[in-house]
């Protein structure tokens, strides 16, 4: 590959009067972060390459009339950057106003309420509903359309078109199943057509939903969602396979209502597959086995205790082994077990049962 690999060089620039030296491969935003200077952002997501769509991280660079976005402008040698000024405040405030002009302002029914980056910005830039009087936007109607998968629903009225979802899908998931389409104020996020016949490459992982800052992509599973302050987030290890992804079960009134993740936790760093993210409704299923059952003489299932049930299983295995030999038995383990558990399982089958009839379902 012949991308010009930049040799690790250092550049020195001045941000808000502070002289900082950073590698020449990073952006103004990253340089400012290193120096402890906060530049407000919205479309920026630490797990993704810069998007540059919201235009809130604009800064002034000496010698260039037009402000530049800090998130996707490289830090160059000798640059003089200003991150706070009256002009920047006014411009940012107008831009946030424009975003809000196209976004519902009744925050109370929204599950993000209280944990929302957009709300925080509106607060920081002192914006309220009456600030929009002189816009009286003539909003467009957005007819409901299916999203890339039935497991997700997209709400164009909420969407602020930050582009994170599109980015995460092509960059992290490597699919590019959704894209921005339509033009101007009619732009929406839509599934990508792979060709005329293949509607979508979506694998229902829900990564787009995870990174959406305003709940514009919502899962169609589950019922009520809780408000951030009434939701207990219980960190746990995903039970679906042996990778060990970390996730937070969202619990409201002792009911699991959803799964969220944290960007900096575990091997998965916030990512999940569709099973880990959406496969939680079984927890409260009526059909779920809660106690061991053993068949009685009449062949009917009867509740019993764990000790009794396991004793019965052991007894029967021993009988079969004695009557028909060890190769009449076999073991099939589950992909939901960890490596260590699978190891112990094959030891049990090989050494205790005495057979090599052991296998694994390999995937869920």
């Amino acid at each position, binding site marked *: 590959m012949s991308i*010009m690999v930049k040799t690790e060089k250092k550049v020195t620039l001045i941000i808000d009067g502070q002289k900082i030296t950073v590698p020449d491969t990073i952006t103004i935003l990253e340089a400012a972060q290193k120096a402890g200077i906060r530049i407000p952002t919205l479309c920026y997501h630490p797990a993704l390459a810069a998007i540059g*769509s919201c235009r809130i991280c604009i800064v002034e660079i000496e010698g260039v009339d037009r402000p*530049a976005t800090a998130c996707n402008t490289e830090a*160059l040698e000798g640059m003089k950057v200003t991150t706070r000024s009256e002009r920047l405040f006014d411009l940012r405030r107008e831009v946030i106003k424009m975003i809000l002009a196209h976004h519902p302002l009744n925050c109370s029914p929204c599950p993000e309420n209280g944990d929302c980056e957009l709300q925080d910005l509106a607060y920081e830039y002192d914006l309220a509903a009456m600030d929009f009087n002189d816009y009286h936007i003539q909003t467009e109607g957005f007819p409901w359309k299916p999203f890339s998968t039935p497991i997700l629903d997209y709400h164009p009225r909420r969407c602020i078109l930050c582009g994170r979802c599109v980015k995460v899908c*092509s960059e992290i998931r490597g699919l590019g199943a959704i894209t921005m389409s339509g033009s101007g*104020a009619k732009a929406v996020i839509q599934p990508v057509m792979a060709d005329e016949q293949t509607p979508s490459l979506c694998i229902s992982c829900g990564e787009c939903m995870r990174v959406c800052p305003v709940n514009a992509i919502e899962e169609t599973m589950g019922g009520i969602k809780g408000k951030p302050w009434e939701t207990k987030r219980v960190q746990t290890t995903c039970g679906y396979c042996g990778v060990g992804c970390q996730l937070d079960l969202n619990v409201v009134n002792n009911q699991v209502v959803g799964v969220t993740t944290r960007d900096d936790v575990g091997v998965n760093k916030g990512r999940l597959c569709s099973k880990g993210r959406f496969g939680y409704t079984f927890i409260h299923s009526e059909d779920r086995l809660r106690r061991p059952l053993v068949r009685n003489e009449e062949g009917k299932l009867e509740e019993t205790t764990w000790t009794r049930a396991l004793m019965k299983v052991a007894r029967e295995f021993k009988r079969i082994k004695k009557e028909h030999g060890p190769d009449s038995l076999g073991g099939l383990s589950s992909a939901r077990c960890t490596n260590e558990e699978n190891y112990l399982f094959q030891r049990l089958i090989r050494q205790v049962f005495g057979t090599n009839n052991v296998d694994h379902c390999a995937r869920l």
Partner: protein
Amino acid sequence: MRKVILGTWQDKIIDNRHKEKHLINDEFPELEDFEGGNRIKAFVGWDGFFIFDLDVPVIDMMRAYVEKVQEESCGYCTPCRVGTKIVADKLRDMTNGLGREEDLRTIKRLARVIRDTSMCELGHTSMTALLKIMELMPKEFEEAIKNRRMMRKGAYRAIATAPCIEACPAHLDIPSYIDAIRGGNYYESLAIIARKNPLAGICGRVCVRPCEFVCRRAELDEPISIKYLKRFVNDQILSYAAARSKKAETVPVRSDKQVAVIGAGPCGMTAAFYLKQKGFSVEVFEELNEPGGMSAVGIPDYRLPREVIQAEVRRIMETGVKFTYGMRIGSDKTLEDLKGKYDAVLIAIGAHKSKDVGMQGEQEKPEGYISGVKFLRDLNTLHHIGEFDPPGGTHLVVVGGGNVAMDCARSAKRLGYSKVSVIYRRTEKEMPADEEEIREAKHEGVEFNFLTNPTGMKIKDGKVTGLTCIQMELGEPDQSGRRRPIEIKGSDFHLDCDILIPAIGQAVDLSLFTQNFPVKTTKWGTVVVDEETMMTDQNGVFAGGDCVSGPKALIDAMSQGLHVAHCIDQYLGGQPMNMPENERMFRLIKAMKLPQAPVNRVGNKPRCNLESRPIEERIMDFDEIEGGYKPKEAIREAERCLRCYRIAMFVTEE
């Protein structure tokens, strides 16, 4: 010619409102009517506006302009997506007599935010004209608010353009297909290309890429690699389709009209593709046994593999175009036959006859003397089936400084001649060949003799043995702007060689025109067509490509194919014929010769180059030199595009 009454562009303001018309000397000398008789009354653009007729409805004009901005806004960034919508709504209100005093302040404030904070040039430039017009004509706006009356509507023709789009003869929507790549949306990207160009795989490899030479990213670091991005999406989608054995959809026949196309070169294939898309039955007649024209039998395989051409043609065939090979019109069938059987005929025969250098001994046609096009044609048709018999000898000399000469020289290297030289009468700077071609030829060991002109051949026993040459020096610039070479008296010298390949240009083979069926031609031996309709002096017989323009480039031939398909459609539908409206607008914009504004941004991210095979390896065979982009590289390259979109709008009488 249009005289400016009021206008501004960048920092310049022209105000002739109080001058008498004949005293005005601010004018656009080359700007004519929109169409014959439909006068242009004003122009609104990215760095300002020009009013030629003071009765234009100014506010409605700006409403139309901002609505077009909103329509073209990609929706990616906030200020342009939402801001221009609010401004457009307010201007519309105003033209409906619903404007309010505070709207003027809101519009101005929003306009400045949009100008300063949008992501791309569309947003940056969208409000310039509006802000300037509000400054220069404040009364119009104040009165509109006071009078609260419905306003008269004007007639507008608007188009989204960019420097690269304007430079491309086919006016491909370059920023938009690059955008689709950035979004990982390859299928859409190729679909955008296919609106104007059905041969993305070919152009993505060998296009002369006029777009890259005007790319504004060059002001920051280097131009965008527009060509290789095209190759990337094409190869990506093609391998996707091949892996699933997908075929292009057959277009149903929607008309009983039939079109014959002569020549399966870039022009013929492009025209055939779009005529088929329009629902006609299309049949292509080709003299050779394979499609591609010069792209197949001129351009060598190491630059453009055969399979690429064949894959493109397969796609065109799958849509329902019929190809007949090995059929020469003029001998196997006549032009008259075709005219009698088909409703329209397109002549796209290219320029395949070679031109003589004009030196002594040429007429004898000695062994070892072979024209560039013939050499390449034989090589290209015979080498891959193992039947090419290269002329014997060790030293091969190519005469000429264009791409054809480079192709001959680099191919000769691959055939194993121990010494390959190029003779050119000017210096390297004046060479018309692509810089990259010259550089690669040098890398591969081709020797160059500049300021050298051959005057005669040494022939022994009917075979070339050498060449007499004369040294040249550069004199005054000629019409093309290049300095004319002049012989230095007495500087003649001799050069030993075994093979001599003149590659100094091609001519059109006009032998298919007969007395029974004459078609008007120029004194340069090209076919004459009407600039507007692409029709020859024979009703229903059209022409396009190299046979009309003289030897040019693929994309020129293809843009004519696109144009001619549009006109044949109108002709067969019995409509009045004229050029596509956007073609007309691009010509008008070009005629205005507007100065470019500098790029007001920072950035330093050089382009992503392709990996080429090592020289020792590649000169052993005719396989492709470079691998294409990998998805990550392509997306990185796409992200460099500044999206220099801008809206141009003509206000016309009707």
